[in-house]
């Protein structure tokens, strides 16, 4: 199928984009890289009256390093991140995750802000934001606010973003010296939507110190489990007993049940990705 009719605008400044979004009469939807939204339009899952294409807004694109944190503009593409020479040093977890985000063609177009705004439960970028304690900057015609990742992702495709707001950038703390990262995901095929995945960082690997593990693909939104992290902190990453205690935390997860994997399978796979990621921490 083809997309339903829509109006198309391509503003060249953030203020112009925000003005289009602010006018409720427009029924506007921001278009970032289009790697999710365009298929959704073609499948007619989404039917906005207007698309506000952000690709002309130069100020939304780019990576700036302020030493202890990295600001990534919302329209920065995965490809831009992959080509950033400091990525492995500053954001090693993101470097580990990037090859798992779909395929080259999609990474060439897909944007950081688009993924975060859409909040697909199986997407990697929201989980990375959770694991890294990133802050998400939202801007509207009325001003700007900053929301921690832990308060941004609310459920299936549901975020703290208001309709008149744009995710304009994220600020991600740079890796501290000695910080460990691990990333593991299970998908039916490399590049597919994950059935279960986890992105994690820790200040030390053995014993595990200050673990932050964000699961994705298992529930409506990326999820960190404090009980799980507490059970693993202070333990060796291959401590089977600790892992068993930790995975009891899955009791509080409302696992997705679909054609790709039943809820029971997903719960099992969440344990598998946890164990495998810990082995690589």
């Amino acid at each position: 199928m083809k997309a339903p009719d829509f109006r198309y605008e391509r503003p060249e400044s953030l203020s112009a984009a925000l003005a289009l979004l602010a006018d409720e009469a427009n029924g506007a939807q921001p278009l970032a890289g289009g790697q999710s939204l365009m298929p959704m339009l073609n499948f007619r899952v989404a039917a906005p009256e207007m698309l506000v294409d952000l690709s002309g807004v130069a100020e939304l694109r780019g990576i700036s390093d302020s030493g202890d944190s990295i600001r990534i503009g919302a329209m920065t593409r995965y490809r831009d991140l992959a080509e950033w020479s400091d990525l492995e040093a500053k954001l090693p977890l993101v470097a580990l995750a990037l090859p798992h985000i779909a395929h080259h063609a999609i990474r060439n177009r897909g944007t950081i802000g688009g993924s975060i705004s859409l909040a697909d439960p199986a997407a990697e970028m929201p989980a990375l934001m959770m694991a890294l304690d990133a802050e998400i900057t939202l801007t509207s015609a009325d001003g700007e606010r900053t929301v921690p990742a832990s308060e941004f992702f609310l459920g299936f495709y549901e975020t703290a973003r208001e309709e008149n707001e744009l995710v304009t950038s994220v600020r991600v703390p740079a890796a501290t010296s000695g910080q460990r990262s691990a990333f593991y995901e299970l998908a039916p095929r490399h590049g597919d939507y994950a059935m279960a995945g986890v992105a994690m960082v820790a200040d030390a690997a053995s014993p595990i110190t200050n673990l932050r593990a964000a699961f994705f693909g298992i529930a409506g939104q990326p999820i960190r489990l404090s009980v799980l992290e507490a059970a693993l902190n202070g333990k060796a990453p291959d401590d089977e007993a600790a892992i068993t205690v930790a995975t009891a935390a899955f009791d509080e997860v409302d696992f997705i049940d679909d054609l790709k994997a039943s809820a029971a399978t997903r719960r099992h796979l969440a344990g598998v990705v946890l164990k495998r990621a810990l082995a690589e921490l």
Partner: protein
Amino acid sequence: MALDKNAPETRSFKVVGSRPLRPDGIDKVTGRARFGADMSAPGMLIGHILRSPHAHARIRAIDTSKAEALAGVKAVVTRADFAAAPEGMEDVLDNCMAGEKALYDGHAVAAIAATSAAIARQAAKLIEVDYEVLPHVTDVDAAMAPGAPALHDGRSDETVPDGYSANVMSRVEYGHGDIEAGLAKADRVLERSYKTAATHQGYIEPHACLATMGPDGQADLWCCTQGHYMVRNTCAALLGMDQGQLRVTASEIGGGFGGKTTVFIEPVALALARKAGRPVKIVMDRTEVLRATGPTASSSIDVRIGMTKDGRITAADAELRYQGGAYPGSPVGMGSMSAFAPYDLENVRTIGYDVVTNRPKQAAYRAPGAPMAAFAVESAIDELAKGFGLDPLDVRLKNAAREGTRSSYGPTFPAIGLEATLRAAKDHPHWSAPLGPNQGRGVACGFWFNFGGDTCVTLNVTPDGTVTVTEGNPDIGGSRASMSMMAAEELGIPYEKVRTVIADTGALGQNEVTDGSRVTFAVGLATIEAARAAKREMCARVAKIWGIDEEAVIWEDGAAKPAGPNAGDYPPMTLAEIAAIASNTGGPIAGHHEVNAEGAGVSFATHIADTEVDPDTGATRIVRYTVIQDAGKAVHPAYVEGQFQGGAVQGIGWALNEEYIYGADGILQNPGFLDYRIPVASDLPMIDTVILEIPNPGHPYGVRGVGETSIVPPLAAVANSVSAATGVRMTDLPMSPPKVLAAVQGQQEG
């Protein structure tokens, strides 16, 4: 010239066996090739089909008035716009446009032609169908159970014994000997049940066609199909036309694998064009392809095999139950015939039940019916061999069918290649390569009948001495190249001097569809004979020029020559020289051949599969895969290898991932390639191939069909491999990760 039926040529070939570039290659990689959806006509309308949202429902009434009133709508058709189908074609018509009942999710119930696709879709929403929803059934065993909702009461034929569900349409039985007596001689009798899911051929190109019909009833149809003569005959019958009034042209085809050997949208487009008086184009989307074309049957099979401890099969018995969708015609007959075909058995029996369910009417899929049967039988033999500690290849060699074996389905085999494939498997480095942790190796054999059928070829020599071969079979696997090669071989001219074209139905007589692995065999045979006829004509012309007897002129290396010193001393005349003066020696030169080709040689294959199973997730990776198959004679070896690889890949998908998933509501849950998982390049290693050439005595060059046999062994080869890797016998396809995981964990998952 008589066919050399009993003496396939053992000559050395110049062109056959080489690997020239395919003539359709550049067009296909540059986008110049025209596929089904690429054709347009002035004044063309877009057709759209309204489909049933119910798995089973009586159609009380259809009100199309609001749709017809919509601006831009030029015609709406329902079943009422079709004449009663001729005998034997009622189901084809009913499947293209539902009559009294909608029998599956996606069944066509009405169609619209409008000036745009958007208007046609909008009009579809305005059609009011009054459905009485009926209970449905989609599983084969459930459909056979007492009290199952009946799709067609009273249509079971006389072969079905009393007491069976009304959904059992027919029963077949094959075999010979005494099963119970044979089983009594066995050291072990294995009884197992197996299931396979329905899978789709997964061709990339959705069905598409463009129909035009004048007020005088002359019609033209452009469509993607495996057989435009079949399309012509079927559509003419369903529309009440003379076959000669309908000319069908086949587009390039983006895959078919059997799924395009019938009609779906073509009669509907013609009916709309007739009613609207304007050309009508219909293009299916992927959802329609999966919901409403012809996937293969799902199956449920019980096998009993007795074996002595030294590996001799004493008796083999199987009951096969196939559901082929909403109408009779599942390939259970061919499954029953092929199940034990690779073996020389004293006591053998297969019983097959053709069952209807609320699913789309199945269509052929590459060796229809055989892969499921082979999955069951080859799994059972593997389990018995392993149980006795025997090499599974040795067990198969011990029981292998050979020349002179009375096959399980009746005929006695001529020269066949099964043993050769088994020996080649034993000698192949793959068979003895070491395995890593969590890896297993499986082996399985496969058989396919192959087919010949009605075929016409015309070969024209142009005035400048090039040659055009005109044939009537859409080129799916590279057959234009193969025909050009065989014509070049026969005429003794370079491959580049021959061009093969696929004619429309006006240009040749009846041609069977491109199926049954028949084209390289049957069209090749007709091409060779057409070339021989042209050679005879050219020799006769030269005899006239030289003033000697026709018998004194022979054809050699692309030229006519005196047969010997006694014939006279004349310099050879090349094909180009003869062609240049043809007008003065009697007119244009051509050869043609029309035949119902018989003598298609059966073919066998042995596959070796290595898999690695992740014990934590149940995910299976194909580590290494080798196909060994008898091709008779490989005309273009690269295409033969491609057929071997393609069949293996489709079989791997069937074994591991692909399945039609129906919800409790009878609605297809995964009508798209996101959720219907076919293997792609990144899922597979390079598939290794070994071509064996045991000549088919029924073809002048020894050619056997190769396209289908290659999908028969993989289901079992992969299942045997996964069973070896996990230590758990896998009997239910697909072996999707959750199923394998549950098996590995020894637990049932809800």
